[in-house]
């Protein structure tokens, strides 16, 4: 179809719009759009750009707070650190592209989130990646895992932003729709932030970065559809990442931003030039005139439709203050980058596009952005919820304890993620105080006493069994993970990965999940400042498990004083905290192929109490180090603690239900070590239950109970725990 041809309902349907939406377009325009304009509607009204199914729910999130400088709605959210500095962060999904081409899909996911951060004037200082795959028994999954990890490594390492943490899970619910969520955080001076606003009538609009090709045309629409058998047809859309060009773009922009020449700037992400131009004009309450023949092209004969919808990477749209054009061009020239004036700002509240002298786009902004459709989609509680949520806990018989544990520790869900994060440069920029393997990554800020901590959490199995409580648990776990390194939560970004919102059962999961997250965040008083919704993670009518990834940022006042892991080896190991333990819904039972029974009850008050105990303990130097209990329960937590301190442990206890105590999951608990008497008295003061479990023990990892014994030389344990994943990544 030709770019300036008048379209019909049939074309609208083909571009993923509904009949009702087509009617709405006609009503807004009072005329019939041409093909380019229709393409713009279809992109901006897609789920991915418009949040049409999620908007009404996202309002429930708490978004305000003393430290919040920018909440949801901009390229990224901003939280104040002190009177000078702030952090700018966001998380995004690149699920569909990563399934189609894992290396490039994941790489461009990293590239995209980095741009969201540095367009705001912040220098990106770290990345995290949250990955969800199907079981590695499937050869294709092994291919996807390796491709995704190498893609993230390729982009992040090259551009020089450390990947300091993340999470990785393997459940077959993700076998046809893997999830790749990437988090990025940057740091900026508080009063040197740039926004995606087109302001100042007559100001020039610049296009900067790589040339435009046909890659990714209609990526946003693709991310708003389920996978069906026509997957192959969608393949030509693959975008290629060029981290070297992005590094130049990053340095050039940060250099320009030191001056006073930029009025507003935005990354060309999903829906490329379309979303960046409309959104910038919307935020600036202005209009834009664009000359599409001026866009630097990589491929011959591209038409306005393709130009407006291309998702070529490493590009930005920028509004430059009058008289500063030369200044800007000079810097881009230094960095060997294309920068071209392609139009100017108006006050018409319209985006007007010209091509070969013909006006091919003449669209008011409001209908496309703020008046885009919003849906309150029907929802319905899925039948599996009641079937699976059995009250009675399951019982697991273990005959050969040692053998079963050795097997369990090699389950990729439990096994060390080192074969992944070893491929990520996690130290470049020399701020990384705690590397991957700790509950949270910890970064110092050069020239400051304080530091920041980061974690990314969600347990999809629990969110499946109970979307509301499971999601609240994700928040609780994140808070706990921050507390385990002595940091207090200051802000959240999220990436809400769900199935098809047109399916009422998925919509129910979504609504429940959002409510669970909101309640928990309100309880802890943590604001959401940015996020992303990824719907349509569905193949042939099968949706993924609900997976609301929580990316949480923490603050630590005096980073030098807090951590004392080295001194820890001489102290006792305690289990602190409380809460219901269950075997049903534990990873161990899942590992054994059992998936039935409700998840353990969450008690946010207990969580808060534990976190207070941890933070106070660090501050008063009672606690030298801590590690929380999560997937795999006490046993796995002990193994991980042992690896963190590079030392075995000697644990003895007797309990009524020892399997439950060792492998059950639930509640708010952490292992702590430090000054024994101080820990004990603090636990009394704060009324946090405490059990002494044993000590560290150089060469041997040993757990003895009345009925069970697990003993293994520390070096063997180290090999064992890496092998589970390593064997798929060699």
């Amino acid at each position, binding site marked *: 179809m030709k770019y300036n041809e008048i379209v019909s309902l049939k074309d609208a349907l083909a571009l993923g719009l509904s009949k009702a939406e087509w009617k709405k377009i006609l009503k807004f325009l009072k005329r019939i759009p041409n093909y380019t304009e229709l393409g713009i509607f279809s992109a901006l009204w897609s789920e991915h750009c418009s949040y049409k199914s999620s908007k009404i729910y996202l309002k429930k999130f708490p978004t305000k707070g003393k430290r919040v400088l920018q909440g949801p709605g901009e390229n990224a959210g901003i939280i104040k650190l002190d009177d000078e500095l702030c952090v700018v962060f966001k998380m995004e999904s690149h699920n569909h592209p990563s399934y189609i081409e894992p290396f490039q899909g994941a790489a461009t996911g990293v590239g995209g989130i980095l741009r969201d951060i540095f367009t705001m004037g912040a220098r990106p200082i770290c990345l995290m990646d949250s990955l969800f795959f199907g079981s590695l028994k499937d050869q294709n999954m092994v291919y996807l895992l390796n491709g995704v990890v190498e893609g993230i490594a390729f982009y992040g390492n090259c551009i020089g932003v450390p990947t300091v943490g993340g999470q990785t899970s393997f459940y077959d619910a993700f076998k046809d729709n893997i999830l790749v969520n990437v988090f990025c955080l940057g740091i900026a001076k508080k009063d040197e932030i740039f926004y995606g606003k087109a302001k100042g009538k007559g100001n020039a609009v610049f296009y900067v970065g790589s040339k435009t090709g046909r890659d990714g045309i209609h990526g946003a629409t693709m991310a708003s559809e389920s996978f069906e058998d026509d997957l192959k047809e969608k393949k030509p859309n693959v975008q290629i990442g060029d981290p070297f060009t992005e590094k130049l773009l990053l340095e050039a922009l940060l250099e320009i931003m030191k001056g006073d020449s930029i009025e507003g700037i935005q990354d060309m992400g999903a829906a490329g030039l379309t979303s960046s131009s409309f959104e910038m004009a919307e935020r600036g309450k202005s209009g834009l005139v664009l000359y599409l023949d001026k866009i630097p092209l990589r491929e011959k004969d591209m038409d306005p439709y393709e130009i407006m919808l291309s998702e070529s990477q490493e590009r930005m749209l920028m509004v430059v203050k009058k008289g500063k054009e030369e200044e800007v061009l000079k810097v881009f020239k230094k960095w060997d980058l294309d920068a071209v004036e392609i139009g100017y700002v108006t006050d018409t509240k319209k985006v007007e596009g010209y091509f070969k002298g013909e006006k091919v786009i003449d669209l008011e902004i409001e209908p496309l952005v703020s008046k885009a459709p919003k849906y309150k989609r029907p929802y319905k509680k899925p039948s599996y919820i009641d079937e699976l949520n059995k009250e009675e806990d399951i019982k697991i018989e273990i005959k050969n304890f040692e053998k079963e544990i050795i097997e369990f520790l090699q389950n990729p869900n439990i096994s060390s993620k080192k074969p992944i994060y070893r491929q990520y440069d996690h130290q470049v920029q020399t701020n990384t105080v705690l590397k991957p393997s700790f509950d949270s990554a910890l970064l*110092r800020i050069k020239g400051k006493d304080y530091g920041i901590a980061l974690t990314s959490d969600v347990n999809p199995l629990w969110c499946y069994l109970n979307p509301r409580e499971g999601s609240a648990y994700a928040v609780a776990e994140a808070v706990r993970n921050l507390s385990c390194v002595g940091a207090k939560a200051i802000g959240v970004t999220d990436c809400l990965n769900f199935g098809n919102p047109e399916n009422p059962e998925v919509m129910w999961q979504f609504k429940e999940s959002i409510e669970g997250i909101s309640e928990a965040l309100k309880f802890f008083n943590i604001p959401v400042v940015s996020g992303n919704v990824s719907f349509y993670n569905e193949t042939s009518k099968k949706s993924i498990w609900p997976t609301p990834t929580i990316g949480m940022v923490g603050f630590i006042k005096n980073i030098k004083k807090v951590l004392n892991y080295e001194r820890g080896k001489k102290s006792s190991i305690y289990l602190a905290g409380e809460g219901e333990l269950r075997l049903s819904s534990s990873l161990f039972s899942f590992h054994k192929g059992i998936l039935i029974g409700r998840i353990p009850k969450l008690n946010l008050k207990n969580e808060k109490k534990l976190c207070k105990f941890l933070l106070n303990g660090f501050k008063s130097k009672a606690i030298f180090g801590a590690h929380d209990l999560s997937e795999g329960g006490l046993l796995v937590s002990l193994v991980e603690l042992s690896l963190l301190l590079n030392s075995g442990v000697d644990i003895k206890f007797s309990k009524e239900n020892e399997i439950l105590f060792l492998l059950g999951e639930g509640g708010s608990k952490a292992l702590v070590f430090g000054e024994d008497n101080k820990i004990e008295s603090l636990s009394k003061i704060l009324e946090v239950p405490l059990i002494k479990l044993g000590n560290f023990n150089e060469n041997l990892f040993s757990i003895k109970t009345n009925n069970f014994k697990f003993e293994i030389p520390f070096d063997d344990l180290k090999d064992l725990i890496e092998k589970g994943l390593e064997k798929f990544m060699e």
Partner: protein
Amino acid sequence: MKIAVIVFPGSNCDFDVYYALKEIAGIPSELVWHKEKTLKNFSGVVLPGGFSYGDYLRAGAIAKFSPIMEEVKRFAEEGKPVLGICNGFQILTEAGLLEGALLRNRSLKFLCQDVFLKVENKNPIFLKELKKGQIIKLPIAHMDGNYFCDDKTLKELIKNKQIAFRYCLHNGKIEEENIKANPNGSLYSIAGIFNKKGNVLGMMPHPERYVEKILGSRDGIYIFRSLKNFLMG
């Protein structure tokens, strides 16, 4: 006395090196853009790590043509200190200022991890503060760190005492075929080499990453302190 830290397009450890030199080791330093043509006011130069030109083609291959490299060559000839770290090492080999080449890691994967290094020889510029045979811990972060040269060159390197560091186990044992002792598969476990004169050092591990206790180790400071003492005379 001042050290130049060269910034190539795609360098990403430039600021880290500058920070370690200036703020931690206390050596006056400056970042210098690769298109500059003179290092007149400097007494030493560091080529930092990163991905110059994206490591496209071969790591370091394109950067060797940067205008500033003429000056780096002059420094090398005149006996002034030249230190190449990671990508900087790769650039020095590509430019022919150091022998050999750095191939893809044997595992074909990027490796970011701590390694143990044995100080193989003495050197008055870079290793004064270290003893021959001493074991230090530094991190590596690279895709192409697998050192290679032909037999004849290797013999020469050994004979001329041009090997600076070799990868080893924590107890100092060198095992070329053991991935734990020689993670990238380097020939003769070579982690860093000098030129014949001993004023050019190229090394894959990153000393600038371990100069502060808060980051886990200070073993990298020895190299910068040696350099400082040498330059201050």
